[in-house]
């Protein structure tokens, strides 16, 4: 009771995230944002430089573009009755120094934002989508939805596509912030949409994966499963890959939704899948800590990498390496080989413990 009244207990409320850009990985890793070498995991810079002097907690994958790394954080209130402070930071990509910050949101930033044509867009737990001028962090517009926005937006050709827990997928003009269309499902949309030709794919908490016309917002086809769809699907060539939170992996024909194969991993999965650059491997990160590598031809499990950690974030593939962010583990980031899952490096490195 006393612990409850004091507000003690600072367990993570979301997951960490990583983004790869060129030869660097940018990680939002609780008390710091780090730039690491993608080759060996060595640290290039960290923000803030003195984490112990800061109360900010960084979650969600950073967005990188136009010389900036944009991340979001949460800091506890100054007083007992205060409100948590939610901030978006624009950091110089070379040095990690903060160029600007924005703290006008009243809800937590869970997933990262997206960058397009000089604009940074991010959804918040207060139900709003915020668009900031990338160069200065100045607020351009806000778009109100009916519930929390936990999804990373997708920006294509001047339009922002973002899902909300109010059961809508919205298409919003990138520069004006006005609605182009809204698609209504029967459950919350919390994943990033994927685009193939003129069709968007996104899953929802009503156990359904939707294919939606990108121009009109009308439904093209749908797939119903036995569990929520949370992480955004992945598309390679004409095949769509999606995973529900019960661990059922689907490979579908992107045009018709016809099932090519399915695989039951029988583990909880929060993250969306990732495909290797040559299209031969599909990577699925399961929440209990295993990274699964499946053959994209038939779903056969090629290898697994077990970790004493929890995996909530989608793996990222670059060249012959797949990178994974981890929660509650000894290591925060792990790089393994695409072909066989052999460890390349971990962060923090073992000698630093």
């Amino acid at each position: 009771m006393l612990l409850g009244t004091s507000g003690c207990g600072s367990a993570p409320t979301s997951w960490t995230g990583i983004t790869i850009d060129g030869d660097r990985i940018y990680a939002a890793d609780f008390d710091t944002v780090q730039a690491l070498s993608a080759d060996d995991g060595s640290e290039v810079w960290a923000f803030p430089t003195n984490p112990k002097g800061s109360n900010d907690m960084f979650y969600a994958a950073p967005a990188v573009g136009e010389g900036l790394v944009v991340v979001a954080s949460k800091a506890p209130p100054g007083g007992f009755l205060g409100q948590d402070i939610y901030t978006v930071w624009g950091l110089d990509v070379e040095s990690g120094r903060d160029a600007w910050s924005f703290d006008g949101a009243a809800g937590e930033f869970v997933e990262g934002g997206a960058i397009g044509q000089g604009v940074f867009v991010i959804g918040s737990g207060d139900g709003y989508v915020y668009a900031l001028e990338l160069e200065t962090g100045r607020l351009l517009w806000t778009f109100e939805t009916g519930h929390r926005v936990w999804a990373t937006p997708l920006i294509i050709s001047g339009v922002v596509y973002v899902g909300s827990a109010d059961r809508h997928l919205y298409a919003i003009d990138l520069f004006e912030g006005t609605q182009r269309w809204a698609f209504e499902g029967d459950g919350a949309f919390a994943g990033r949409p994927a685009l193939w030709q003129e069709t968007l794919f996104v899953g929802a908490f009503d156990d359904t994966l939707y294919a939606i016309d990108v121009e009109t917002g009308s439904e093209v086809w749908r797939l119903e499963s036995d569990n929520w769809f949370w992480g955004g699907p992945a598309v390679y060539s004409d095949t769509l890959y999606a995973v529900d939170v019960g661990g059922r992996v689907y490979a579908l024909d992107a045009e018709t939704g016809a099932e090519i194969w399915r695989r039951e991993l029988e583990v909880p999965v929060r993250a969306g899948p990732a495909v290797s650059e040559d299209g031969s491997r599909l990577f699925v990160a399961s929440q209990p800590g295993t990274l699964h590598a499946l053959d994209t031809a038939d779903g056969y499990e090629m290898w697994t990498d077990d970790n004493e950690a929890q995996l909530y974030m989608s793996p990222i593939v670059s060249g012959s390496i797949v990178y994974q962010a981890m929660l509650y583990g000894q290591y925060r980031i792990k790089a393994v080989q695409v072909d066989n899952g052999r460890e390349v490096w971990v962060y923090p490195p073992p000698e630093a413990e």
Partner: protein
Amino acid sequence: MAFLAYPFANILLLLYNLLGQSTVGAIAALTLVINLLMLPLTLKQQRSARRMQEIQPELEKIKKKYAKDKEKQAQATMKLYQDKNVSLTAGCLPLLIQLPIWFSLIVAIKACIPSTPLDVFQFSQHIYRFLPGVVGLVPLQNTFLGMDLGMKPSPAQWWSYTLPVLVFATSWLQQKLLTPPTSDSANASGQESMAAQQMKTMQTMMPLLMMFFTLQYPVGLSIYFVLSSVIRIAQYYIVQLRDIRAEGSA
């Protein structure tokens, strides 16, 4: 402590679906269900408090008779309590039993009206899909009178702070009505007055603790506490009225 969390969360989903997707309606209905299940205990508590009030004249006689002999006074007092089936702890017991319910409700409300995704991810594996219409409901509609039911009270919604104050007021009143009076028996013996003093302290401290507790947890939980106290206060008056009428007809 939160072993009831998923059953509560699923009941909340079912009620939400049945009550036109009203979150406050679902919380109110769940509050009623829980209070009905606790009714035997609260009735026992209420009757014990009433018996305590009835034996006050006899307690005064014991106090006068054994004014110079504290030990005999204590013995006679305890014998009277036993003969009349009065419990000094009757006021505390329901609170202790409710603790696992509260903790389970915190988890259930955070699962159904999550402020963060980690609140709801585990629950996704424990939704009772055989219940009609519950798939796709999470997260529940989170606004009520401009307040976010899934977040703790905040300056941005300053009126949300009235709910913890209401939690204090209603739980204090409930405690006062349902806890046996101890002021006259406080002088019977040193041991007894300490117990009586502890009871009095609990009557104020528990509502205060609950108020501070609800300042740190989602607004939806405050609604449960307020409604729960109001229901028990209503139960008190209904039972009192029925007992008085029964005595009158006898």
